[in-house]
């Protein structure tokens, strides 16, 4: 054991850079440590339960077995994951573009806002993914119905959030711009759009996080490729570790999209993060 005196000496001794690194590491440990520890605990408990209870791997595979499945089926998983990711990204992109256009239109024409806004808010609460079977009837088993479902699913949260944001400009700022004889377009570009950006991103983050789920669900209902299709096939073949592996990849894809949106937001809305 060290006496308090020794500890103080040791802390004071290293040069500043090492000390800085040490504070940084300490802060990271304090911030992320508890969550990492809990995750490790759960995985360990899971592993222990599987090995001691003798539960069948077709019912509940151990984490190590899931890792093995990920490794041995890497190529197959990647192939299907890319399909899912591509249709999710495409659907999300279509949703963003069309939602922005509609939000700006709603903001420009009061009558359009009164006519459409209540419907958009109502539709936002409808679980759009239940439309997946209809998409199948109308558009078949290819990528199109999945892309459409994802964009339909992502469209409502983005358009409602953006329209809200556009309407929330500080009237005093608008008055100031009016005093400086700004045009409608200048007011939109300089005040209303920047005001709406944080709202737009909170809508986009929700949409992005759940877009992968919408994509996978559309694949469950019927399709030729994708993580949803793979999960269905693996389930039917009782290849439970592979199902888990596909679930892990789905979660990873969701998380990556969410993180990507957050990074873009930080770069686009720098004044809120300094």
């Amino acid at each position, binding site marked *: 054991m060290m006496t308090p005196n020794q500890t103080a000496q040791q802390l004071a001794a290293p040069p500043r850079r090492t000390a800085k690194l040490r504070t940084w590491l300490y802060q990271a440990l304090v911030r992320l440590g508890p969550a990492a520890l809990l995750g490790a605990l759960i995985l360990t408990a899971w592993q222990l339960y599987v090995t001691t209870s003798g539960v069948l791997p077709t019912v509940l595979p151990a984490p190590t077995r899931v890792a093995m499945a990920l490794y041995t089926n890497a190529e197959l998983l990647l192939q299907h994951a890319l399909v899912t990711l591509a249709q999710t990204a495409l659907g999300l992109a279509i949703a963003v573009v069309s939602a922005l256009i509609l939000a700006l239109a709603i903001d420009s024409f009061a009558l359009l806002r009164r006519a459409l806004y209540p419907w958009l808010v109502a539709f936002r609460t409808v679980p759009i993914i239940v439309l997946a079977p209809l998409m199948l009837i109308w558009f078949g088993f290819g990528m199109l119905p999945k892309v459409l479902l994802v964009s339909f699913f992502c469209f409502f949260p983005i358009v409602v959030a953006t329209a809200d944001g556009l309407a929330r400009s500080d009237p005093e700022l608008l*008055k100031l711009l009016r*005093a*400086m*004889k*700004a045009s409608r377009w200048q007011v939109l570009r300089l005040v209303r759009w920047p005001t709406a*950006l944080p709202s737009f991103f909170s809508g986009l983050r929700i949409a992005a996080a759940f877009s992968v789920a919408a994509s996978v669900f559309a694949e469950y209902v019927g399709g030729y490729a994708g993580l949803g299709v793979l999960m269905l096939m693996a389930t039917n073949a009782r290849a439970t570790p592979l199902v888990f592996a596909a679930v892990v990849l789905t979660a990873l894809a969701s998380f990556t999209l969410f993180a990507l949106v957050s990074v873009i937001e930080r770069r686009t809305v720098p*004044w809120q993060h300094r």
Partner: protein
Amino acid sequence: MIRHSAHPQAPGLEVTDLNKSFLRRGDRLEVLREVSLTVPPGGFISLLGPSGCGKSTLLEIVAGLASADRGTVRLDGHEVRGAGAAGYMPQRDHLLPWRTLLQNVMLGPELRGQSGPVAEQEARELLAHFGLAGFEASYPATLSGGMRQRAALLRTVMYEPRWLLLDEPLSALDALTRLELQDWLARLVATLGSSVLLVTHDTREALLLSDVIYLLSERPATVRGRFVVPGSRPRAALELTSPAMVQLEGALMNALLVKA
């Protein structure tokens, strides 16, 4: 008090017989009654009156943000219709949070479509006069209240340096910063040669900065008196202790406290 302008084409700002009332919950609320005043070119005129008397409304009408029920506003002989003729600075700084200090200051030239290197050079030079050099890339949220207020004034000056309409520009600041900025503003306006119409409820601020003080009554605002401040600008804070100034301050305070 009704003043008829003898020279309708005279340069300067001329406000003649302004009347304004609002409808509030079905009742007519009279805010301005027959208000007339003039600001000569290069002059510094203060509107002194109790809070809520309609000073801000008067300034908004002069800025072209609101219209009068009756009466005219002329700037250099031309009747003001619509905004943009003068530089208007609202009570709070209203810097755009998503723009850096330099971008905020450049708002006026940008809106006029003149945000070229010439205007930017001018802005950078003025930043030093405004004690803001080195903060060009800072976002407003990181600046102190005094700096934000100076930045807002610079934005106004960059939009229109000749005519400045200032609506209690220093009232949101703490007492010490306010004293510093009053002193600074006195010297700055003298350097720029701007014509200023200042709205304030601070008697000492009006005395320190202006050539002429118009004393307004409670709502509906009427001009209760026009006071010429002795001495020449820019004044030092110490000049407020001269007998003539103390007497004028006493008269103004008395008029403000005694209901018309």
